[in-house]
């Protein structure tokens, strides 16, 4: 599993993840509270400059992540040219671009390990009141490991389907995929229990 963190190393990669994640909701809220098009245009310009500070390749990568917005931008353009409220349409479009670009900037400049570090820190108080936060960390690792494996299962099931039938494998393949996932869940649960369970921490140095 490859994270969406940009391989292009920028100055923003060195800012602590917690600081970026703390600033993001406030800045996003500010974008949503502003109704003035020039303020949003200025914000978008600053964000574009942020991307540009990481180099042209980084900017191109960031623009690529915004591709999913074009149907919505098209919709806004058509809608507002029909209703004649061009300024309102401009506000929505600029806000959408700025908010998404800003959030993606944080994702692109923060490594997965740093993100997980922040999550662990956020979960620490829950650990103190007795919730099994180790299970959360283990579950994250399991999804990372098992997603490619289930995709692989799907491909193998599709291949064996094609060996037996001339028709395309369709939704029916999800049945054995889900069954195999449930079997794997049982096997991993047994393996975890055999190793002392998830509640018993493995002592340092013996992992």
């Amino acid at each position, binding site marked *: 599993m*490859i*994270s*969406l*963190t940009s391989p292009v190393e920028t100055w923003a990669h060195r800012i602590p993840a917690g600081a970026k994640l703390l600033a*993001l909701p406030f800045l*996003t809220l500010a974008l*949503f509270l502003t109704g003035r098009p020039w303020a949003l245009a200025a914000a978008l310009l600053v964000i574009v400059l942020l991307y540009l500070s990481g180099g042209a390749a980084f900017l191109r990568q960031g623009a690529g*992540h915004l591709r*999913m*917005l074009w149907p919505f931008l098209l*919709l*806004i353009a058509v*809608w507002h040219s029909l209703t004649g409220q061009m300024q309102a349409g401009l*506000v*929505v479009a600029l806000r*959408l671009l700025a*908010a*998404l670009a800003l*959030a*993606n900037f*944080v*994702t*692109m400049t*923060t490594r*997965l390990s740093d993100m*997980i570090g922040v*999550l662990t820190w956020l979960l620490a108080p829950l650990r103190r009141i007795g919730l*099994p936060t180790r299970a959360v960390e*283990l*579950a*994250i690792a*399991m*999804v*990372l490991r*098992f*997603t490619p*494996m*289930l*995709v692989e299962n*799907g*491909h193998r099931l*599709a291949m064996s389907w094609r060996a037996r039938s001339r028709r*395309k*494998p*369709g*939704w*029916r393949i*999800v*049945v054995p995929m889900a*069954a195999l*996932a*449930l079997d*794997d*869940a*049982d096997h*991993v*649960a047994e393996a*975890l*229990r055999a190793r002392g*369970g998830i509640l018993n921490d493995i002592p340092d140095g013996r992992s």
Partner: protein
Amino acid sequence: MERNMTQIALFAALIAALGLIPSLTLAFGVPITAQSMGVMLAGAILGARRGALAVLLVLALVALGLPLLAGGRGGLGVFVSPTAGFLAGWLAAAFVIGLIVKRLRAGPLAVTVTLASVVGGIGVMYAFGILGMSIVLDKTLAECAVLVMAFVPGDIIKAVLTGLITQALARSRPASILSRH
């Protein structure tokens, strides 16, 4: 404890895998993403609590920056996009579907699960989705409701398939329908 956790993790992986496999997105020749079907299955098979936790795990990993959503999307940006409401709706959908499958014991499982998926996976999920869209796009709820209507037929197909898949799974592995335990 261990079994609950691994089932939640494996179903989160299944939801992610269903979004990554393009060859599975075809149903009756119509290309639809199978990912929201994974959400319906999580509720129908794992039950309300575990199903919603599996969805929460997927969303947490997406927020951490992993491209687990259909089409390889992910990162914090998707939570401010016009479709962010639907992601919140996934949580509620899995929970409601699990709840209905547990409580409603009359009739064949396929019909019950289809019904639950229509109520939870369409009714509840679209309520969240439309609300999110109306906030981000600054349109009224009615206007957004009209915009998303085009996706309802595809989701009805997914609800029926969820019913059929759950019943097939109940036949091959009777103990696996944990929502009924």
